[in-house]
């Protein structure tokens, strides 16, 4: 019985939190004192809410409400309070609602009829005016709060390309997108997520390029989220993924408006979240996670070469330590004799088998990396010196690890940072450890089985319905132009098939520059 009662309680509690309480839904009263009492009850113990009572033209009683620090007080004084308080006798003839509307010099005003509307407006930083003998209030778009300046994104650096990154304020971010795509086809839909935080989340897409079912899917998945609060877009990411148990990210998180713009133009949908510079792009493929935006700004030959370098180092980041273990433990014959002798010589003093040596060093490296992320600037140099000693000369001369091992760990570490997306690099780095264990138990065969498992897993993955390994599997030869190589811009005439099939061509063909054509 007790259990049953408790369950019931839990259920009702949930419903309560979902719906605004009954008091707030009440429409505004006619009398200002009643309204004030009600609002004071709602904002009990909220010392930052300002209740400013004044009279309009010395006649009508009125009340101005706003939250300190969220609204522009200078504007309130200049264009709201002073015109209203100095209203003349002739103005008094008008109804009080019209009087306020005529006198207030603010662009974004909106009538509010209920207490919940009032609360919503006030929380968003919009001051609300309530007048006596009127059950309609007016909210004023005078929100203003401290914002971080637009800066170059720390985690996604480029040599060539725009330097500005998203900030924590949603309106700044949407303005950055709007500045890049000026067409009215750029749609920005807003929804609210979070019972308490009421975070605004924007679904952004270009009409006519993005698949309607995709937009619907994104909207339903976002609407399904019912949590206390959205702290960062990562929280949303975990709620909308296709396969929550996969180590691979199925959503692209970026703070670069140029990446978002190009994704929107390929028919993808972007989710902007208030309070974080990281926006989410869906759907994505593995290959789009391995591309850098700079690939498209540099000369295409260099970009192609860089892409191949990245693919190579992806494999190295995943496999080099396990290959080292497999070769040393099972397949010594594959190492050329002279190299084998020098390796054996350097391993002579080392007391550990290759597996322990590799695990020791890789875990140390991961620890150093993790420590480095959170390091205060002042101690940074100290840790890097210690790190260099641990993974380096001192460790070798102390006879704890062999010199080739240090090289392997260092190359692997560098390799994992050539992957442009941090979350992808993380997945690869973590998968390295099971691969090392497989290599230690079954040699090259174990590595192959591990690779097969990873590929099978990647083949099952989908991001919002798009196969993760496309365009390699399923294969689309045309799109290899933008994965295996980076074809010159005048060759990339079609959008990616799976996201941009509604509007296939993104530019007219035959735009290859040609000096002869210029002379015509």
């Amino acid at each position, binding site marked *: 019985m007790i259990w049953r009662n408790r369950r019931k309680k839990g259920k009702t509690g949930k419903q309560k939190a979902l719906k605004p309480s009954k008091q707030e839904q009440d429409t505004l009263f006619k009398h200002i004192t009643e309204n004030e009492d009600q609002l004071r009850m709602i904002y009990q113990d909220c010392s930052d809410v300002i209740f400013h009572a004044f009279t309009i033209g010395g006649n009508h009683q009125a009340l101005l409400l706003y939250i300190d620090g969220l609204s522009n007080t200078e504007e309130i004084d200049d264009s709201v309070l002073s015109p209203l308080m100095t209203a003349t006798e002739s103005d008094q003839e008008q109804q009080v609602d019209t009087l306020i509307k005529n006198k207030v010099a603010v662009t974004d005003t909106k009538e509010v009829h209920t207490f919940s509307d009032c609360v919503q407006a006030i929380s968003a930083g919009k001051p609300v005016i309530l007048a006596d003998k009127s059950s309609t209030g007016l909210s004023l778009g005078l929100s203003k709060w401290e914002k971080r300046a637009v800066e170059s994104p720390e985690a996604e650096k480029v040599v060539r390309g725009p330097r500005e990154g998203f900030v924590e304020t949603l309106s700044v971010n949407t303005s950055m997108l709007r500045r890049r795509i000026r067409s009215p086809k750029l749609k920005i839909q807003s929804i609210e997520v979070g019972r308490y935080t009421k975070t605004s989340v924007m679904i952004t897409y270009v009409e006519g390029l993005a698949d309607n079912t995709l937009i619907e899917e994104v909207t339903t998945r976002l609407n399904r989220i019912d949590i206390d609060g959205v702290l960062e877009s990562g929280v949303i990411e975990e709620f909308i993924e296709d396969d929550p148990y996969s180590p691979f990210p199925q959503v692209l998180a970026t703070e670069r408006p140029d990446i978002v713009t190009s994704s929107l133009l390929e028919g993808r949908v972007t989710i902007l979240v208030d309070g974080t510079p990281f926006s989410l792009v869906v759907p994505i493929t593995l290959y789009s996670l391995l591309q850098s935006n700079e690939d498209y700004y540099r000369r295409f030959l260099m970009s192609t070469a860089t892409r191949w370098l990245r693919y190579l180092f992806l494999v190295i980041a995943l496999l080099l330590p396990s290959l080292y273990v497999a070769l040393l433990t099972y397949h010594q014959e594959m190492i050329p004799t002279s190299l084998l002798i020098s390796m054996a010589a350097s391993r002579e003093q080392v007391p550990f088998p290759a597996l322990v040596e590799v695990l020791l060093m890789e875990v140390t490296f991961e620890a150093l990396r993790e420590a480095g992320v959170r390091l205060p600037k002042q101690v940074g140099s100290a840790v890097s010196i210690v790190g260099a000693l641990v993974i380096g000369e001192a460790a070798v001369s102390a006879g704890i690890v062999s010199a080739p091992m240090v090289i392997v760990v260092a190359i692997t570490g560098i390799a994992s940072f050539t992957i442009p997306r941090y979350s992808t690099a993380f997945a690869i780095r973590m998968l390295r450890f099971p691969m090392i264990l497989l290599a230690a138990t*079954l040699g090259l065969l174990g590595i192959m*089985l591990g690779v*097969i498992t990873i590929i099978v*897993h990647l*083949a099952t993955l989908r991001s919002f319905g798009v196969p993760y390994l496309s365009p390699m*599997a399923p294969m689309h030869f045309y799109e290899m132009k933008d994965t295996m190589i980076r074809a010159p811009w005048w060759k990339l005439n079609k959008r990616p098939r799976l996201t941009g099939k509604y509007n296939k061509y993104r530019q007219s063909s035959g735009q290859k520059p040609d000096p002869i054509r210029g002379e015509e």
Partner: protein
Amino acid sequence: MMERGKISGLQMAILLYPTIIATAILLVPAISGKFAEQDMWLSPIWASLAGFLTVYIALLLHNHYPELTIMQYSGKIIGFIPGKIVGLGLLFYLLHTNGVVLREYGEFVVGNFLPSTPIIVITGSMAFVCALSVRGGLEVMARSAQIFIPVFMTLFLVIILLLFPELRPANIFPVMDDGITPSIKGAIVPSQWFTEFFLIIFMLPYLRTKEKRMTWGMLSVVAVMITLVITNLFSLLLFGDITSKFTYPVMSAARYIDVADFLQHVESIVMAIWVVGVFIKVSVFYYAIVIGTAQWLHLSDYRPIVFPIGLLLIIFSTWVAASLQELSHFLSTVWPFYALVFQLVLPVLLLLVAMMRKKAAENDN
């Protein structure tokens, strides 16, 4: 619909290619060499005729019942009970053959690379990985094959290129010294690999487009034939008469590779690549068993039986033979006829009955 995924014609061809090649590439050169000697490179061409025939028959059967696999239409063709009996026999054959394939793989790895590892670890780990891909469905298998096969083929070509300096072209002569007969004799056992194309029956209903399925099926046979001709030719040019004395001529050929004293002893790499082929082969057979069993029992989903059948598979791989010698004896004596019955004779008989039934139905009208 039990299988929700759809594959393309190209994906079907890419799945079938390693299904045949994976074990054929290891064993066919020695078998053909035994009978055909210096004409062994011709044998795959004759053997491929069996492949073309199998694919053609499978397609004709498929045209009669475009939405069904053999497990479903065998009942429609020869009646419910006989259909179930044929289905059970076929399932047993597939399970048995897959056990043989898994055992061959295990014996090969244990014999050449990991001598002190228990064979059950090798076969068990492979069966587990295959179960994962079969659980993902035909689409997932096709996609993983699409990632692996380009790598597989590239490395095959690299190995062939690296072997070029070691070849002695004179080994090929005299061409057809005793006429055409030896090369045909050398084609008899390898033709059973080509009849494995019969597995196309389990994929045809799940093709996305109905056009070009004949082309892709036949192209796959041609690709296998060319690969085997190249393999046989290179074994012949490298080893000459003694090809048939090796158990795995290709693996021995890989030992010859030596570039600038640096790139040598690459047989472990060859093995690693070959594992990918075996993975696809076992997966395709495994998939046929699983989807066949599910259809035989009229289940609504095949996923729950994937892992139990995997266990059966491991047990079969242990039971098929007591030793490698017994296994190769079975493979060279019983298996060709056994395979012929289920992979070619059975479909042909079903097709004949189906055609007669259709005629009879037309006459009735």
